[in-house]
């Protein structure tokens, strides 16, 4: 599907005490569907509400309550599937996954084991500049989220809040195509970017709206290639699953630590038992989850409360034809249309708001100059300003555009433009009015510049001699003229005059 002008990275090798090892990682990403109401009830999905206030009786698992599916969650899942170049299954169905836990009042989670709504797809994951790889998606299914247990409010009691119970999740399952901790986090970031573009998940990891279960195994060099040709998993090592990670930093740490643990066991002649583990960032270790040991028997069966979901092809086609421009397409278009480097195009398309801002600035203006101002000046300034995002920018795209216009029409110099930018950033106002009021306009009057240069030449006979002997030293005069005019002299004119008077 995608024309890869990128190099695929080589798998990272980890040196054990005896052998070299490689990592094989598959991810299950749980993304909260952006919707007003829950998957099967009319209760709100709003985060941070009073405990147990966003709960319908369906969510609380009250007897006799029946689930009715939210149509928006279906279209959000389909949109996400299309964004991941995936097969949309016109027929899908819901199953019950049975287990007991205090935050699961129904005693089962409604999920889609046998017939998921989205099938195989793929995403292009950018790594360091010039490197990228395709990660295959196995499936996306819709399911209910569980509630939230709080363990640290009382020594003997756990507190349960069902506000999140029944909120729609998309579980995005990858194939074991990820070969390093960096690739894992880049893959999650890419999913996040695509879903934020589509508006199907806000990607807020801190609130738990995007979490991942990480499946990790290790193998000896060469084994993975055998798996690739045969798709036979027995070529790979036994995997362990690290549950419920909601920080990219911790995911990266956990992968490295878990790989080391498995290598240690294998090199001392042991075997890995397939199990579910938790990462403890304080201790820097992973450890088995007690509760999940016997619960693996989920006794899935089709949910008798819900009919299968049949989608119409033209309904899917309609969503598909109204899909917005996706990050990869936009990046390519920015690189081509605006003649930007792939890296700059990547930065400017990182999120939708940034790309809109840039396009508004660049419209009808010098593209490279616009890109530089947005990337270097604006992003740099926002970053220094306690990491503000583009949506918080005190400078609007039209104000920045006006500053760029003043540069291109030679009304202000590049140096003054930076001062002007800072004034507009902190104080606001119209850039051209500020230029007028504060006398920042560039001096392009030859006589005025010549006058300033003559004074400097008169007062510095030694420098004049040096400059005549070595024309490279004439630059000193340019600097002095700029200084004496408060940076307002047109540098091009100053250069020309210095050349004329001292060099030729």
């Amino acid at each position, binding site marked *: 599907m995608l024309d890869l002008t990128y190099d695929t990275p080589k798998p990272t090798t980890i040196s054990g005490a005896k052998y070299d090892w490689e990592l094989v990682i598959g991810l299950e990403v749980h993304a909260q569907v952006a919707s007003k109401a829950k998957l099967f009830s009319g209760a709100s999905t709003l985060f941070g509400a009073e405990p147990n206030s966003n709960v319908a009786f369906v969510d609380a698992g009250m007897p006799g309550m029946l689930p009715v599916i939210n149509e928006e969650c279906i279209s959000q899942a389909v949109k996400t599937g299309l964004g991941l170049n995936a097969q949309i299954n016109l027929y899908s169905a819901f199953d019950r996954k049975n287990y007991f836990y205090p935050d699961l009042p129904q005693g089962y989670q409604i999920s889609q084991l046998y017939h998921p709504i989205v099938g195989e797809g793929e995403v292009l994951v950018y790594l360091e500049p010039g490197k990228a790889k395709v990660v295959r998606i196995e499936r996306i299914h819709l399911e209910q989220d569980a509630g939230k247990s709080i363990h640290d409010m009382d020594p003997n009691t756990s507190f349960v809040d069902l506000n999140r119970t029944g909120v729609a999740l998309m579980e995005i399952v990858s194939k074991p195509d990820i070969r390093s901790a960096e690739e894992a986090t880049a893959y999650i970031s890419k999913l996040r970017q695509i879903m934020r573009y589509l508006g199907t998940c806000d990607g807020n990891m801190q609130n738990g709206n995007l979490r991942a279960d990480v499946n990790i195994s290790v193998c000896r060099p060469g084994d993975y290639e055998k798996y690739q040709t045969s798709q036979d998993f027995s070529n790979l090592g036994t995997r362990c699953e690290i549950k419920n990670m909601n920080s990219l930093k911790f995911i990266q740490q956990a992968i490295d630590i878990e790989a080391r643990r498995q290598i240690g066991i294998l090199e001392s002649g042991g075997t890995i038992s397939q199990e579910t583990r938790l990462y403890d960032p304080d201790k820097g270790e992973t450890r088995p989850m007690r509760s999940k040991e016997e619960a693996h028997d989920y*006794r899935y069966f089709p949910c008798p409360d819900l009919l299968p979901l049949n989608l119409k092809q033209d309904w899917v086609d309609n969503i598909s034809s109204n899909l917005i421009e996706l990050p990869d397409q936009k990046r390519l278009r920015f690189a081509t249309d605006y003649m930007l480097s792939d890296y700059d195009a990547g930065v400017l398309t990182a999120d939708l708001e940034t790309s809109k801002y840039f396009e508004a600035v660049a419209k009808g203006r010098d593209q490279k100059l616009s890109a530089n101002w947005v990337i270097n000046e604006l992003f740099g300034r926002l970053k220094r300003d306690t990491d503000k995002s583009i949506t918080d920018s005190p400078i609007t795209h039209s104000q920045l555009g006006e500053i760029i216009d003043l540069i291109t029409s030679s009304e202000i110099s590049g140096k003054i433009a930076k001062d002007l930018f800072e004034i507009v950033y902190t104080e606001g106002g119209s850039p051209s009015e500020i230029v007028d009021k504060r006398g920042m306009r560039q001096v392009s009057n030859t006589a005025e510049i010549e006058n300033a240069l003559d004074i400097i030449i008169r007062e510095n006979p030694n420098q004049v001699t040096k400059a005549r002997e070595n024309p490279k030293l004439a630059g000193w005069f340019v600097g002095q003229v700029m200084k004496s005019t408060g940076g307002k002299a047109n540098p091009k004119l100053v250069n020309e005059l210095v050349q004329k008077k001292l060099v030729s």
Partner: protein
Amino acid sequence: MAIDVDTARKVAKLARIAVPESELSKVAKELSGILKFMERLNEVDVTNVQPMTSVTPMELKLRRDEITDGNQQVSVLANAPDTKEGFFAVPKVVE
């Protein structure tokens, strides 16, 4: 397929139903009887028959994405054996 005592014990535990050890062989026998009865259905050839999901030709009913429910903390918590500050309070479960 016959259910042995070990399977009966496991199924009871997974379903959180307390079955005394003395009752397990009886339960196992009853479950085996049910399965054996159902196995008779295997005699029917269902090749090329779609699984039936409803006796009438119905489509899955959809709801619109609107908030129509909730804001009933008191009712939601009404049956709970213990509550604290709007939460269900349950015996400590820690990983």
